[in-house]
């Protein structure tokens, strides 16, 4: 009561105050359409005039009335929107009255057809700018390759007659502009018939003043219907390329100049990708880098994972991209720089084309590469017998040439939401030749030379191979999760080879050094081999319960091998070709493979488990004969049946932690070469014998892993463990003749070889963003069994690897990435413990980057390898330091000039050492060492000036 009184007393004062300068207003009005029908439930928004910020909003009532109370004075815009009407806008002007009454505000309806077609059917955004209504042309579907004219025909209110004249909203269009400018003179058809529809983002139709009035400045009252086409901003289309050329001098006198040229160019738009690449060098870079590969193949870089037609678990035999290594075969384009041994001259080049739409993905590519490699090597090998050992020393010089033409084609088509197929073809034509000159010397325990072999071999290979696969996948409309897939493959290889073998063997009698037995060999082998294979697989997946799937598969394969080997002796009859029937052979094998299996999969919330069993049958039907024109054949008919269990687990835990485990069994069939009851004495000191009783090797594998990553602290942990056990492993039984040291090997089955090991890794920042460290430990234990001269030798190798990496990125101008790896492996032999040994490999590496003023950079890279084997007094230290200084040129930073020195200390030697079963070996190869090079690079997309990061995925 008292309050009321107070209010009553104060009321006059307050109203006076308000009447003078009200600071709170009420804005009110009524919304209606052009025929004064009130619009209820319209959205009324109060916006800041400067940036359209929303200040307040309300809705109109059923009478179309609205009121906004308590509005502070300001610079406002009132906006009213109502479905089907052009949004209404009006500035608010505040007077000295508390109530701002806007009266009746009339909203104009959007043309019915515009609203229905553009907004409702095409779902294109409609922009309103005063009188002009524009809409997004991209929403109107026209087939690829259509012109703007085809697009205009689709637009509401627009007609295009047979002559290409455009009629919009009943009036003939006089002018067509592109981005507001005249296009191709005054004929409006020029623009509409020439521009592709997919280059256009927006179409605006409005009335413009006539040219006449524009020139004179006098409005003649006439208006021209105008169509303005807005081009897509940065219409996804472009081209880029990169070229590097370098020339340098070898630091090793007579080795000749070094050079490299490398270039690539890409052209693309949203559907097509076209690229070419080429490279040549004599700096041991045999192929493209991963980055080059990705630029070359574009969207087809990694699509092969989906192309495996061998359904079912374990050993399905997918295709993989070859990483590194020599280009020894395979249908995929080789990536990586090879092993960098010896000296090589390389040439490679290719073209690639990709076409991608939502439904079609097509790729075609051609790639050629060739390498000519010179390998001069020194090898030492020690073979252990039950009592004692013998040593082999070899000096060899080899020249290899290999050239490959590769063609690949892939077509993936999504027919509709349920049907899809993929066809792939990968083919290769390969030519190669090698020349090998080698001197091998054999030493007894007391370093007495017992044998000596001089070898001069030459080979020529001519090979064609092709692999074709068609995969069809079907999903079912009614049952989500049910699916069916079928595949068919045809693979073919034709290989013709000529091998000339010349050797001179000298056998020194142990008791009398003058009693030398000589054995001369001069053979030429012509081998023709044809292998063809037809495969087919089926897969059916049935979701039989919630979260459970039943997967069944069938794999069938038929392979036929035809190999004809004719050997001639040139030594017997002074160069005349005398057939050698004991070495010549002919065989024809066919292999039938069938596998059927089933598994159950459980999948829910990141716990994925699958377990299953398959049975496979493998049948070999072969006939074999010695001699060049054999009359009778030896038949090999074998059939193996193997059960294969399989289990796998993947568990996605909270907070970026993952767990997985698996058990699988792989089965490898004995090779035909091992099964043939034939003696191969092409190497007179190592005579190979076949064994028709071989059984397939069954390999049991168990693995377990865990990893976690904390994105906030940048900490990560990786742990994995593996165990494998071999049943019926094919091992070469060795019989060494104690007097001649001739080794006869014969494959036999041995059970019991096993491997166990682990990898543990831990990474953490020392100082966030400035320094981080990684530590890893990798122990491994293996047991291998080999019968030697009738005694089973057990070789145990325990290896321990420890590695650490330190990344220092203190500033944008200086970075160091250092790593160290220590590895020790102890090998123990059961039959000759005196030969037990320890091999030590250490490596220290580091990369340092410095950014200097004026776009100068320094990059240094050290790799220091230490190889030790005390038993042999072997201690090799190979420090390789590469360093370069470069300057980025130009404002756009597109060019670079670089001076590099490779192997500053001139210490590069291809060194490797290996201990296994009953031998240890070491190898040193004369390899490209110190050279300097001055190179120039131009990159259309600009050079990378980032010195912090070293590759990796993002």
């Amino acid at each position: 009561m008292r309050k009321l009184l107070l209010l009553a007393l104060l009321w006059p004062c307050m109203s006076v105050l308000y009447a003078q300068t009200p600071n709170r207003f009420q804005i009110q009005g009524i919304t209606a359409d052009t025929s004064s029908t009130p619009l209820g439930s319209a959205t009324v928004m109060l916006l800041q005039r400067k940036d359209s910020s929303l200040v307040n909003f309300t809705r109109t009532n059923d009478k179309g009335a609205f009121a906004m109370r308590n509005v502070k004075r300001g610079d406002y815009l009132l906006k009213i929107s109502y479905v089907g009407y052009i949004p209404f806008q009006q500035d608010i002007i505040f007077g000295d009255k508390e109530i701002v009454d806007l009266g009746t505000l009339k909203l104009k309806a959007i043309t019915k057809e515009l609203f229905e077609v553009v907004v409702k059917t095409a779902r294109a955004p409609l922009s309103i700018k005063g009188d002009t209504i524009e809409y997004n042309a991209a929403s109107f579907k026209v087939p690829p390759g259509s012109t703007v004219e085809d697009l205009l025909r689709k637009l509401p209110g627009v007609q295009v007659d047979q002559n290409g004249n455009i009629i919009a909203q009943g009036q003939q269009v006089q002018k067509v502009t592109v981005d507001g400018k005249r296009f191709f003179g005054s004929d409006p058809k020029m623009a509409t018939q020439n521009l592709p529809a997919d280059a256009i983002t927006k179409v605006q139709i409005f009335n413009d003043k006539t040219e006449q009035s524009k020139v004179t400045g006098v409005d003649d009252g006439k208006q021209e219907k105008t169509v303005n086409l807005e081009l897509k901003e940065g219409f996804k289309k472009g081209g880029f390329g990169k070229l590097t050329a370098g020339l340098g001098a070898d630091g090793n006198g007579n080795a000749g100049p070094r050079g490299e040229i490398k270039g690539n160019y890409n052209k693309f738009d949203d559907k097509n990708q076209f690229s070419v690449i080429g490279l040549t060098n004599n700096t041991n870079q045999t192929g493209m880098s991963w980055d080059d590969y990705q630029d070359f193949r574009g969207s087809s870089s990694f699509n092969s994972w989906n192309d495996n037609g061998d359904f079912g678990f374990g050993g399905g035999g997918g295709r993989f991209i070859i990483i590194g290594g020599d280009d020894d075969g395979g249908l995929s384009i080789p990536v990586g720089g090879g092993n960098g041994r010896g000296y090589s001259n390389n040439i490679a080049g290719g073209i690639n084309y990709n076409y991608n739409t939502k439904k079609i993905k097509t790729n075609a590519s051609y790639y050629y590469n060739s390498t000519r490699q010179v390998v001069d090597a020194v090898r030492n090998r020690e073979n252990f017998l039950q009592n004692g050992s013998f040593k082999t020393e070899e000096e060899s010089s080899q020249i290899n040439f290999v050239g490959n033409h590769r063609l690949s084609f892939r077509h993936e088509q999504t027919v509709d939401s349920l049907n899809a197929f993929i066809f792939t073809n990968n083919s290769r034509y390969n030519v190669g030749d090698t020349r090998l000159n080698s001197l091998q010397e054999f030493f007894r325990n007391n370093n007495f030379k017992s044998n000596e072999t001089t070898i001069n071999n030459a080979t020529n290979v001519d090979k064609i191979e092709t692999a074709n696969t068609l995969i069809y996948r079907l999903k079912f409309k009614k049952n989500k999760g049910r699916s069916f897939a079928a595949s068919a493959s045809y693979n073919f290889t034709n290989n013709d080879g000529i091998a000339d073998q010349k050797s001179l063997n000298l056998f020194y009698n142990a008791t009398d050094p003058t009693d030398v037995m000589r054995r001369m060999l001069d053979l030429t082998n012509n081998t023709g081999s044809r292998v063809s294979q037809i495969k087919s697989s089926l897969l059916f997946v049935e979701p039989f319960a919630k979260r459970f799937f039943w997967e069944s598969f069938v794999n069938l394969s038929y392979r036929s091998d035809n190999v004809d080997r004719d050997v001639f002796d040139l030594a017997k009859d002074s160069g005349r070709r005398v057939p050698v029937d004991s070495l010549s052979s002919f065989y024809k094998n066919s292999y039938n493979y069938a596998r059927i299996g089933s598994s159950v999969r459980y999948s829910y919330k990141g716990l994925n488990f699958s377990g299953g069993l398959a049975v496979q049958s493998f049948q070999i039907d072969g006939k074999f004969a010695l001699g060049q024109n054999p009359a009778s054949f030896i038949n090999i008919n074998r059939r193996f049946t193997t059960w294969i269990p399989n289990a796998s687990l993947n568990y996605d835990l909270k907070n970026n932690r993952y767990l997985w485990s698996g058990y699988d069994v792989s089965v490898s069939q004995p090779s035909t070469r091992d099964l043939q009851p034939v003696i191969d004495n092409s190497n007179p000191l190592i005579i190979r014998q076949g064994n028709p009783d071989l059984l397939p090797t069954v390999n049991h594998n168990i693995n377990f892993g865990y990893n976690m990553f904390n994105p906030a602290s940048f900490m990560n942990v990786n742990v994995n463990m593996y165990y494998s056990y071999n049943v019926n492993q094919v091992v070469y039984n060795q019989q060494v003749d104690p007097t001649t040291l001739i080794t006869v090997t014969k494959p036999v089955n041995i059970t019991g070889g096993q491997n166990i090991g682990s990898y543990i890794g831990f990474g953490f920042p020392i100082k966030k963003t400035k320094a981080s460290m990684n530590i890893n430990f990798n122990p491994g234990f293996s047991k291998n069994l080999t019968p030697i001269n009738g005694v089973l030798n057990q070789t145990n190798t325990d290896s321990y690897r420890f590695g650490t990496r330190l990344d220092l990125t203190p500033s944008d101008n200086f970075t160091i990435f250092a790593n160290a790896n220590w590895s020790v492996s102890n090998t123990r032999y059961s039959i000759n413990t005196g030969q037990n040994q320890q091999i030590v490999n250490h490596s220290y590496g580091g990369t340092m980057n410095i950014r200097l003023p004026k776009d100068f950079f320094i990059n240094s890279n050290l790799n220091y390898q230490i190889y030790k084997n005390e038993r042999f007094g072997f201690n090799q230290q190979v420090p390789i330091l590469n360093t370069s200084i470069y300057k980025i040129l130009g404002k756009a930073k597109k060019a670079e000039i670089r001076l590099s020195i490779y192997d500053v200390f001139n210490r590069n030697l291809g060194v490797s050492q290996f201990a296994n079963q009953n031998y240890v070996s070491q190898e040193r190869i004369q390899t490209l060492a110190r050279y300097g090079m001055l190179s120039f690079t131009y990159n259309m997309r600009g050079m990378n000036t980032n010195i912090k990061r070293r590759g990796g995925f993002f």
Partner: protein
Amino acid sequence: MKNIKLSTVRYQLRQSGFAILALISLGFSISAKAQQTEGMVTYEYKYYWTKVNSRLTFLSKEEKDRMKLTWGNEEDGPGTKMKLTFNDKQSIYTYFSDQGQTEDGRYSWRQSDYLIHRNFEQEKLIENHEMLGKTYLLEDSLMTYNWRIQNQIKDVAGYVCMKAETFDPIKNHKITAWFAQDIPVPAGPERYFGLPGLILELDINDGDVIVAAQKVELKNVDKELALPKMKGKKIKNNDYDQMLKKHIFDSIKAQRNPYWSIRY
């Protein structure tokens, strides 16, 4: 920041038969259900990672092009289904299903905890975020967005929507929202809300992420609006923003991608 007094927003039923008649005669299909202010929206959340990764300042033009050419065509697959349950007082936005799955369902994965609750009546929010290796429970009062209303309309899931824009200063994102003129509820997907109508499409940073409504069901959802039990480290708006800011800054500095471990 301007005050948006949500409580002053009045939602009224359109009763004018005349107006409806006029609309029908114009051929617009707006049924009476449009007047409802409660229901459920199913969205598709699509993350265009090659676009997102192209924002990484430490990648060169060459690396960005390489990524786009290699992977750019692989992004046509379906996105993640999300759902928004709303009435005029509150809303809950979270995953549509309780697990992530391949299209055929044969492989599944965990989804990081993510739930956004808005209470317009009490001006309160609750958010559950699993990010940066932890689970957080954000409880605070509603933040405000400075929405700028644009002169553009389009149809989303059968509703005519108007365009509004705002800016996220923490992640440096341009946000475009399309709100339905017919559903007078200030709710929206992800963390966005506060417009005169329900947000049916959200475009984060020029198409890096698109959250678009696929289905709008107007029905009673009182049951679905009950909050599930949520655990997590308690956090406030300000600390949450600071944490994100620091993570993005540190990651960019260390040349790591900050985005895969947070909601973009």
